[in-house]
């Protein structure tokens, strides 16, 4: 059955991985060390992909309920002094056996099937009761808060939006979303103003040119990259900003470097490619729902929204319409954890799509699994 895999999704994903590796190589100024690490990550991701795609959705659906607990444990553990690694002021990593695991990605990974499973099991109640939607929301908010404690502002907000979006698509009553919406805005504003560090970030973001050497440095350098790229870019490898001028060129600001090399038109192209992946997963999700599986569908929706959100946020930060969040661009930014997790999710998406086509997708009628 494997030969019926969704071609557009696979092809564009491969294309993006290739673009990502090449761009990271350029952004690190052709550092072979980074290139090797990235290629190993790509290889590992592909291997993991191959394994995951063989797992029946049924199994995932069964174990998904433990996702919350797993995510909770990881989220708390990383904040404990001996387990979590602190890098640059944020405690995001746990090291196990020589590997450093990015907890934000892992929490996301476990939250997705959990929420999908919850929605799948509780659809009627979600549809009917106004307040029922808040139960999963609250549970997951705990996870978001844990992320924000790291602090992983970007990861937390994307997770929150993805959760809200998925619940929205699951059919919860609109009114509850108004409340959620208002609540989110309030809490975001509250969080943003809660620490002087964040306030400074916001004022700097609003007018980076007022202090281009200190607080506005990274943003102004990013904007300069876009300005230099004009419409068609300087050409692959010709970025000037990567020569020590733009910090985090290979991660949080890789879109800027890409644009400097391929221009605004190239940038729009890349954005559309990433959003296409999100769209395609979205589409697969809808087909899954129509075929009767809310688990598969919600899983797909969550993934799609997460990818689209990350991309929009990353680009938004790079062009200066959003304050700096420290978010990577899916497929492109240098981040081995992120790549592996992304490919795991795509593997699951491909799998559920294959099962749908093959007709073996577990469908829930009422509360029974068929």
């Amino acid at each position: 059955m494997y030969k019926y895999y969704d071609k557009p999704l696979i092809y564009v994903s491969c294309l993006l991985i290739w673009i990502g590796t090449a761009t990271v190589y350029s952004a690190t100024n052709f550092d072979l060390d980074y290139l090797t690490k990235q290629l190993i990550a790509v290889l590992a991701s592909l291997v993991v992909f191959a394994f995951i795609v063989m797992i029946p959705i049924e199994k995932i659906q069964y174990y998904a309920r433990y996702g919350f607990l797993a995510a909770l444990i990881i989220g708390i553990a990383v904040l404990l002094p001996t387990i979590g690694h602190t890098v640059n002021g944020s405690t995001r990593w746990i090291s196990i056996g020589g590997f450093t695991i990015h907890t934000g990605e892992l929490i996301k990974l476990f939250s997705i099937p959990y929420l999908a499973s919850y929605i799948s099991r509780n659809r009627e109640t979600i549809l009917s009761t106004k307040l029922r939607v808040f139960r999963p929301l609250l549970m997951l908010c705990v996870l978001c808060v844990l992320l924000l404690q790291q602090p992983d502002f970007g990861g937390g907000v994307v997770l929150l939006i993805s959760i809200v979006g998925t619940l929205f698509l699951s059919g919860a009553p609109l009114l509850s979303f108004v409340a959620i919406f208002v609540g989110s805005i309030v809490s975001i504003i509250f969080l943003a103003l809660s620490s002087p560090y964040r306030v400074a970030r916001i004022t700097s973001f609003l007018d980076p040119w007022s202090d281009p050497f200190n607080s506005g440095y990274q943003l102004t350098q990013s904007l300069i990259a876009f300005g230099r790229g004009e419409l068609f870019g300087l050409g692959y490898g010709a970025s000037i900003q990567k020569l020590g001028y733009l910090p985090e060129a290979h991660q949080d600001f890789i879109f800027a470097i890409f644009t400097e090399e391929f221009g605004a038109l190239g940038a729009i192209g890349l954005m559309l490619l990433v959003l296409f992946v999100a769209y395609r997963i979205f589409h697969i999700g809808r087909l899954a729902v129509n075929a009767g599986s809310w688990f598969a569908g919600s899983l797909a929706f969550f993934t799609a929204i997460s990818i689209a959100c990350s991309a929009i946020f990353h680009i938004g930060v790079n062009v200066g319409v959003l304050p700096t969040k420290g978010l990577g661009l899916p497929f492109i930014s240098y981040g081995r954890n992120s790549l592996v997790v992304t490919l795991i999710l795509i593997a699951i998406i491909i799998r559920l799509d294959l099962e749908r086509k093959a007709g073996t997708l577990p469908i829930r009628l009422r509360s029974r699994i068929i």
Partner: protein
Amino acid sequence: MGVVRYYFVMGLFGLLAVLLSVKLLSLGSIESEFLQDHGDQRTIRNKAVKAHRGIIFDRFGEQLTKNDTAYDVWINPGDPPDGKDLQLLEESLDLPSGMLLDRIRKRSDRFFIYVKRDVGAEVSERLLKIRRVYQQLQEKRVYAFGRALSHVLGFVDIDGKGQEGLELEYDDWLYGKSGNVKVLVDRKREKIKNLGPVKGLKMGQDLQLSIDLHLQLIALRELSSVINQYEIESGSLVALNPATGEILALVNFPSYDPNDRDNMKVNTLRNRAVVDTYEPGHLVSPFVLLAALESKQFDVNSLIDTSPGHFEVGARKILDIRDYGSIDLGRILSKSSNVGLAKITLSLTETQIYDSFKGAGFGESTSIGFPGESIGVMVDPTTALSDIGSKMEQVALAAGNGLSATPLQMALAYSVLANRGVYNSPSLLKKEKMDTGDRRFNTETTEVVLNMLKITAESEARGAMVPGYVVAGQGSVAATVSAKGGYDETRKNFFFAGIVPVEEPKLVVLVALNNVNTAEDLDYQTATKVFTGFAKSALPGLGVEPSLQN
């Protein structure tokens, strides 16, 4: 399921994508100029491209100067290294502790202060890791042969500009002009690539001297050895190639090491051979005879009655060591008979001696282009106020007292003689093309005088004989002028001018030994010692075949 919701979510992301696209296009077009300007401010610099100073070579292409790289270390007082780094810097450069902090405070408004200039490559390496300490590349001029060529070459200052000697005279030629190039730099100000052509760069040009390095080294050795042996105050040696006028060697004592600027003493800096003037005394006698012969009033057999050995011209009393009686020109020369010379002079016209000396180059600029070159002084008998005054001046000239000259001029005069009367302008630079020269005296008369000057075993100056070669030469013990005016009886100068080999001269050498204490029982044979020492090594070195059997 909610199709509306589905499309709503898609539409929302689509809208965001469109908005971002608009922003991207705006940044890439409308805002791009502003952004690129800002970017260029950080990444583009005008870098000065230093021209290498020209190299100075000897006549055979031996390299006399070298451009080493040195570094100037600087810091920015507005953004200085922190305490620990500052200490480390002071230690590495051997500076007193706390000095830099003090300087930073005093010049806090500047962006640039030198910490130490002219630092070698090793120290420079060590400083590379100290943060906020920067280095500027400089060229350091190194003189490979130090004391031997110091007076001729001179030296440059810390900015590479000539200060003395040929380095000064030809500074424009050697220095070149720094150029400019627009470069792209990375965050650490390291150049990534050039953004355009180098503008305005003029490389320094090389200079080739007439000096023969080996002769120069021999000259310094011989001069120093005699001077040190007899503890003489100072001296010079000039060696010319009479056929071309090129200066093959020019050394002075005392000398200095131009590489060691910190320990230079002012009295060692003067290029005495070119800058100091002395009364030549009997060194000019041959030119009196030349005047006599050229006037046709005298010939090789003419006799002059010098008795009773003393003679008066106006207020001037002329004295010989003893009464030589009636002697020919040759004897007048060999015995340095003042009476003879005076009587010859007075037989000639008012200007004949003066013109003869002028023809030999006395009182004229040599135009070798050396800064501070002296021309010397010569009394002009035509300007005397009375007839007797004029006669006195003529006689003074003939005695070698009425003029002063540099050792170079003295060498040049003998060069004209050696060249059979043809004057070739002297040069410190290698002559690629020989000029035709200027005939000042007749060939025949110069041959006669040269013959008289030949040194044999019977000559007074027999110490100047060089085995295997025929030498013609003249020595002189001349008076020194005292600072108060008049002569200083306690000091005298020794000169010896040698021409070798006489048949076809390859070398004209002038040795000067100055301010020798009269109390010491020395005569100009000390000068001939220098001459023979030099000639013995120089002639084989020049490939001149011996003409005599030993």
